[in-house]
């Protein structure tokens, strides 16, 4: 029973990995950026969630959540427009380093703006509450359950959107063959900005739903980056259902490790990193992307 419960709790954390991983996939697919700032974007959007929830109580916690998601989306789109669009034709390494830079700048910014709060951390209101629900075999907090459910719903919705909507198809077109898409008049910059916006919104959602279970400070979420990457990598950085499943499974696995005896609890934080290495060695991407597609995503400087 303990393990069933651990798996259930793990899936909720896995939901966070999945939401972050989905954002990574969208961003990578549209602009070829491995976004190391994904968790920092989640963290700083959650500060916005907190500020809106307390300074505009009439909006309720849902209004604050909406505001945070909008902020995350604007942040994502803004980062793309100001930084990554300009690096569209730079080598992938340049884009990578730029994203690492942003990943450091955002926490520093949060530390300046919210000094004081950033030291003790902030306790946040939980949109779905922290009531303990008993589901026959297991107990879980309503917010944790919501995280798992929301991530699945968002993942499925995103998958459908990519397949059916015009924008989604355009995004796939850009990813598959940039030149051809351009020639067909697909507004690449706009599509990428949308993808970054969605990625930022998902990061905000992850932060604002998860951090009420923890606390908020500028270092938060950073340790989740490997797991988010592992989830995204499981989908070869492009496949949405696999990234979703990967995130959920990784969360469950970690949680089970934490609850076991011996060295396992200490290994738990390394599972994600091990997963990344294993996926890379297994060249998992080749199951999802053709060499031509990869070249399209990464740009001319890909050097592969």
């Amino acid at each position, binding site marked *: 029973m*303990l393990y069933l419960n651990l798996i259930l*709790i793990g899936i909720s*954390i896995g939901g966070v990995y999945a939401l972050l991983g989905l954002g990574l996939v969208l961003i990578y697919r549209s602009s070829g950026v491995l976004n190391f700032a994904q968790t920092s974007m989640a963290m700083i959007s959650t500060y916005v969630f907190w500020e809106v929830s*307390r*300074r*505009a*109580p009439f909006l309720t916690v849902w209004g604050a959540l909406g505001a945070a998601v909008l902020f995350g989306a604007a942040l994502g789109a803004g980062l793309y427009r100001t930084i990554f669009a300009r690096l569209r034709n730079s080598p992938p390494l340049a884009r990578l380093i730029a994203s690492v830079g942003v990943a450091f700048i955002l926490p520093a910014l949060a530390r300046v703006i919210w*000094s*004081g*709060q950033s*030291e*003790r*951390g*902030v*306790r946040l*209101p939980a949109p779905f509450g*922290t009531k303990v629900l008993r589901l026959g075999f297991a107990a879980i*907090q309503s917010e*944790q359950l919501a995280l798992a459910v929301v991530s699945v719903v968002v993942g499925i919705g995103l998958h459908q959107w990519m397949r059916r909507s015009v924008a989604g198809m355009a995004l796939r077109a850009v990813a598959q063959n940039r030149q051809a898409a351009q020639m067909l008049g697909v507004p690449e910059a706009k599509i990428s900005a949308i993808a970054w916006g969605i990625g930022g919104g998902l990061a905000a959602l992850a932060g604002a739903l998860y951090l009420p*279970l*923890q*606390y908020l*400070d500028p*270092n938060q979420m950073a*340790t989740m980056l490997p797991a988010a990457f592992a989830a995204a990598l499981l989908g070869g950085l492009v496949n949405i259902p696999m990234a979703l499943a990967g995130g959920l499974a990784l969360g469950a696995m970690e949680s089970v490790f*934490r*609850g076991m*005896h011996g060295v396992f*609890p*200490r*290994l*738990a*934080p*390394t599972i994600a990193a091990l997963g990344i290495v294993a996926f890379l060695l297994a060249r998992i991407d080749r199951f999802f992307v053709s060499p031509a597609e990869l070249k399209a995503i990464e740009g001319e400087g890909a050097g592969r």
Partner: protein
Amino acid sequence: MRIPENGLSGEQVFERLRDLRRKDAETRGGRAWGLVYDSGLEEAREVAERAYVEFLGLNALDPTAFPSVLRLENEVVAMAIAHLGGGAGVVGNFTSGGTESCFLAVKTARDHARATRPEVARPEVILPITAHPAFHKACHYLGLTAVPTAVDPETFKADAGAVARAVSPSTIMIVGSAVSYAHGVLDPIAEMAAVARERGLWLHVDGCIGGFLLPYYRRLGRAVGDFDFTVEGVSSMSMDLHKYAYAPKGASVVLYRSKALRKYQLYACASWPGYPILNTTVQSTKPGGPIAAAWATLNFIGDEGYLRLARLTLEATERLIAGISGIPRLRVLGRTDTSLIAFASEDVNVFYIADEMKRRGWLIPPQPSFGPSPASLHLIVTASSLPQVDAFLADLRTCVEAAAGRGLRIDPALRDTLAALDPSSLTDEMLSRVVGAAGVEWDALEDSMADVNSILDSLPPQVREALLIAGGNELFTPAK
């Protein structure tokens, strides 16, 4: 363990008690730099003890049955009000300690806000990060949200600008310290009061540890900013008597600007078949001993006596600051406004200094790093410290050298595991496993705390808290 079938003799009882005391820290003689407050006045202690014993059995629950205790409380509170610049209209109560005083101030502010600002759904209390945990605890118990604000990274005084910026429509209260425990510094109370006045908020000034001493320091010629009821906008204050008034433990007061505010502190219940209850404070049955002992101490030592004790304290503090600053590798944090000294080191693990000093019979409580404040050692200087200063400084110098280069190498994997703990979803079982995996043996803590302190220091505060709770849960296991 059961109640002994046949009672022990009085002699056996005391033998057992004395036996248990052997590992305890000294409470007198100035070798303990925390937890105890020693005036050094033998006679004052005897007077307090006698008063305590004489009022031991009295119950302040019913002031009509024991009017003496009511009178003592009202006299003690009156002296406290006069000491803190309170004019006509200021009222207060005697409580069991600083935590209860602070707790009641927060509860009173909350209930006042409920009555006057019912639209606030999630009330917030602004706490500069140096505010005492009693306020976080009160917020936790009372369902309020604590909003921490920054302090100046050099002086460690609350930043009034940060307080003003943190005010939201949900804010009901601001807390300032006079003085803060960790660094002994006085917050800019007048500026914080201006914010409180402008935004219509409750300002509590926590004078638990500094409130009694500050007026004497001012009379000794030290520059002391305004901090008490003379500052318009201060709604309530707390001041412990079991600290620098040297009363036996269990003695503090909480004061309010007016009865109209204090009203929200009181609690009455007549909805049961027993006696109608009126409680002024948290306790209901309330022992007479602490009130009588505090009253006796105040009256016995007297104003001139306290001024003399303050002079001794001030001199010891200044000599310690000079001495510590003169020891290579040590640095005093901030500039204390009273008699609390925090000092840190750039390159020596202070937790090992504390352990070394303990071996030489000095009790120095360590403080983990937090925000702009590095890990440090904390001295509560009292009137009985002065004769110990030179011996202390000499030992400190040796211990800094002895501790240099020592330190626990914390397994990074373990630290990451600990840091990644989700405090809310951890079961007790998992926590105790983690604590075990860290190699912490709770039984061995009496001898060496340096390793445990180093681990705690490396973790975020919320995880420190989860581990402390797990540890505390183990420590308090019924005796076999």
